[in-house]
């Protein structure tokens, strides 16, 4: 099968690609309440959403609450923390100049990395004060992935409504693209690739299944792609492992991605796994979303024939792909819950939804992503249905 199977009506879609301009217009309009979390980091693009809000704020912008958060390292400061703090100050000052009032509709909170649940609870208690149902906007451009995973889990578990009556109806994740990338970061060590839920190496997770479909995004660090390839090679002799290797390109930035894509595709030309590897390309985040759903759907077909099958995505970068992967896995698990007779494919208490899917991430808490640097550019926006 080679097609994109368009969004199946029966597929429990939770995430959609939206146009940021129209969401921003709604946000800055007085008709509905919005809470926006901005997270200035050391990258230029992590300030882009705040700047965009400053530019487009108007007299109708009365129902928008902004939370500016900074994550600082637990240990001694490093250069990134200092630049982060500088950017955060700049962001708050610009928003004040644009007419937001610190303590009223603008809140600033410095958090310590790694984040703990109490911090999130405190943040939302502050932001939800005095509002009922609202839409939540999160600028994920510079948000560390570890924090983002916690936040998304928090959203998934329905723990956002910290005050009676407060509830995020729709969640919008905004991502700003950097327009050039640094060659210097190719060799950044990202540690072992781990399943972010189980917090154990993805190789160990795969080794517990008789078969697996592993989807690997070849974007980002070659090192992580190589690591996953090693994992699959290790498991391939005794397990039925199929690997889909996806390269990410952007229509308007073809040259920027192409060399890196070929280099990473080359990884596979020297392996003995040729017959187990399929290669494909995606051209934007929406394409990635539908292609991943298609792959998830195929994996479900395989799961229906076996008792012990895993669907794993190792997204690499850019970050928006990681977020999409997270939701596709969540949709995949939801589909199993809806459609599958667990008695046929598993046995007893072992059968839990987490059993059938994994999302890989980097073991290290904070690292410099290949996609972090460069002048800020276009926005991408994901709308997430808050099922909780």
């Amino acid at each position, binding site marked *: *099968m*080679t*097609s*994109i*199977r*368009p969004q199946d009506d029966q597929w429990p879609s939770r995430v959609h690609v939206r146009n940021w301009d129209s969401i921003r217009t709604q946000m800055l309009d007085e008709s509905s309440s919005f809470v926006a979390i901005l997270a200035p980091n050391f990258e230029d693009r992590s300030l882009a959403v705040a700047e965009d809000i400053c530019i487009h704020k108007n007299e109708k912008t009365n129902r928008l609450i902004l939370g500016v958060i900074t994550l600082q390292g637990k240990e001694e400061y490093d250069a990134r923390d200092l630049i982060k703090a500088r950017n955060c100050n700049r962001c708050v000052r610009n928003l004040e100049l644009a007419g937001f009032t610190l303590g009223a509709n603008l809140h600033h909170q410095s958090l310590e990395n790694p984040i703990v649940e109490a911090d999130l609870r405190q943040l939302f208690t502050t932001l939800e004060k005095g509002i009922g149902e609202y839409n939540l906007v999160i600028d994920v451009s510079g948000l560390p992935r570890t924090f983002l995973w916690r936040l998304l889990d928090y959203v998934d578990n329905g723990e956002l409504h910290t005050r009676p009556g407060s509830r995020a109806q729709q969640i919008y994740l905004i991502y700003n693209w950097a327009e050039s990338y640094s060659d210097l970061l190719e060799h950044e060590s990202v540690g072992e690739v781990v399943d972010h839920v189980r917090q154990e190496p993805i190789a160990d997770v795969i080794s517990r299944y008789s078969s697996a479909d592993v989807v690997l995004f070849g974007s980002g660090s070659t090192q992580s792609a190589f690591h996953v390839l090693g994992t699959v090679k290790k498991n391939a002799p005794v397990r039925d492992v199929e690997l889909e290797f996806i390269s990410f*390109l952007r*229509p*308007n930035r*073809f*040259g920027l991605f*192409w*060399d890196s894509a*070929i*280099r990473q*595709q*080359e990884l596979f*030309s020297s392996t003995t796994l040729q017959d187990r590897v399929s*290669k*494909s*390309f*995606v*051209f*934007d985040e*929406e*394409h990635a979303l*539908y*292609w991943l759903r298609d792959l998830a759907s195929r994996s479900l077909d395989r799961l229906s024939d076996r008792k012990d099958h895993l669907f794993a995505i190792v997204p690499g970068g850019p970050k928006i792909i990681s977020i999409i992967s997270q939701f596709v896995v969540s949709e995949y698990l939801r589909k199993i819950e809806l459609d599958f007779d667990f008695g046929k494919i598993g046995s007893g208490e072992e059968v839990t939804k987490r059993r059938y899917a994994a999302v890989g991430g980097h073991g290290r808490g904070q690292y410099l992503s290949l996609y972090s640097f460069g002048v800020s550019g276009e926005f991408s926006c994901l709308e997430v249905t808050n099922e909780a």
Partner: protein
Amino acid sequence: MTLFKACNVRSHKEYELLSSSGVDVAGVRALAGGRGSLPLEDITKLVNCAPQSSPKLAILTDRIDLAQFSDDLKLKSLDFLMLHSVHDTTTIELARKLFPNTRIGSLLAYEFTKNEINRVLELEADFFVCDWQAGGTGRTFNQRFLDYVMVRQPSAKLMVAGGLNSLNVEAIVRDYRPYAIDVDSGVRSGQFNRFDAKLLSVFSTRLKIASSDEELEVKSTFSRASIAPWSSISSATMEGENIVAKLRLLSKLDETDRYRNSKESLIQRISKSLSQLANHPDVPNRWVEAALVAFAASTYFPNELLKSSIRFLYMKVWKSVVEFDEPRTSFHVFSNDPGALAEDFFRVNDIHGRLDQDKNIRIDGVEELGRALIDAGMPESPLHDQAIQRLRMLAERKVWVVLVDQTLSGHSLVGDLERIAWFHGQIKEHVTHPIRIMVSAQIATQTALKALRKSEALDALLRDGSLSIDYAIGLGDGYNVSDHRCDLVSDPEVLQDLRDLSAWFASEFIVDDGWLGRMRRKSGDNLEFGYRSAGLLIARQDNCPTDSLPLLWHSGTGKAGYKYSGPFPRVHSRIGEQVIEQTADLWGTLVSAKEQSWLRNMSDV
């Protein structure tokens, strides 16, 4: 082996230093009026007392009275005589008589015009001294001059002088393989500008390394490495343009998905193309290098990438169809250039029933649309009812997809779109629903996108949202070799060489190629930078577009009888004129007011 000549020896002590520094030839000056020269008696003493072994001695003179000069010197023998001011056969012959067993060199000044160069090269000198007329100025040699000389007379023995030093000696030896290198200020230092033993040693070593490569090329058992042009590519270009890395990546792509399933590897094809260029007497080494840079900078689109792009484009289409609350496969597909792409579009995306006439209208392209319109306007035509039926089905579709494999100059697409847009304009009064035209291109250049917006009709549709353009791979202006924003080549000189080579290539290989006549006329030039000066360096797995430089795709024999085959040889889909001209006639008839009788039948449609 290139000889190492150190110039302007002023004392016996300096000569001794040269003898221990690997210098092959020591030069002394005997200029009229004595400017910077040794006295003649010192020269005589130096030459007559010099040992038989190296360094040998060379005298440079601008004296015209050679007989008197010979009498004054009273030399026992002399190895080299370099004539710096007289350039005629009589003088050369006289010098041979006066200085028997001496190699006679004639000046080939960098200031010479082409005619002067040609005339001097005809002299029967043993070697030619390439230098500035003033000599010893430290001014750098003239590379373009040397290129010209090499093209004009590749076998000429050149003694190259002018601003040489240990940094540029390797390149000059590798590029031109001169008979000798003449150096002066490049091996001197200090307040008194004396020969520097260290500089002499470094210069000598580098010259020998570069020369020994040349020797190895002849003797090596690795015969493949000695084949031109690989042996003559300069290190500076190899490094500066990242040739190795780029070729490696391209080769990897070609290995997994070989261009048109060729039996030869990409490197074999590139080697062949470069060798053919290098063998042509009009092509200097630097052009061969520029060709290599162009081949290495090419972008190769393998099938998997193109297949993925078809999926991406389909996603865009069905999202648009769904906006109209239509079933996902309810759209009509026009092909800009009817071929395999439409079939791939349906097959790759698992869209069934492509040939079902009740579901999909058999109007694949603009020409068929035109014919259907003509038939619809002629009730007596046997195809009238069928045409009405087909046009009715087309009008019912809310999304018309114009499928394009590549729009590079934009010319063909603009032509087709304007016709579709014209039909769209005629029909919209007769239908109640909006109709959106979607261009779905696998590859699009900025040039093509600009061309679309330049068309008033299309720009109006773009602005009101009736026309949209989606593409998977966008190529900016930096991909155009003829554009000042081109970033495919790092070194501006190499880029200029590539442009010069492209211009020459067109005059040598393209202008007389009968198959390309129509394309040249439509392009309005000789395809120096490909069709309509697109200046691209791209190739798809199935073919190479004419919008790429002909260097990449052309195969044929040039004016001088030399053959050439580019690394991505192209299969031309059109070598005649009839089809396009017929289509133009058809639409010319159609849009004329008199013939719009079919419009009266639009109520039927």
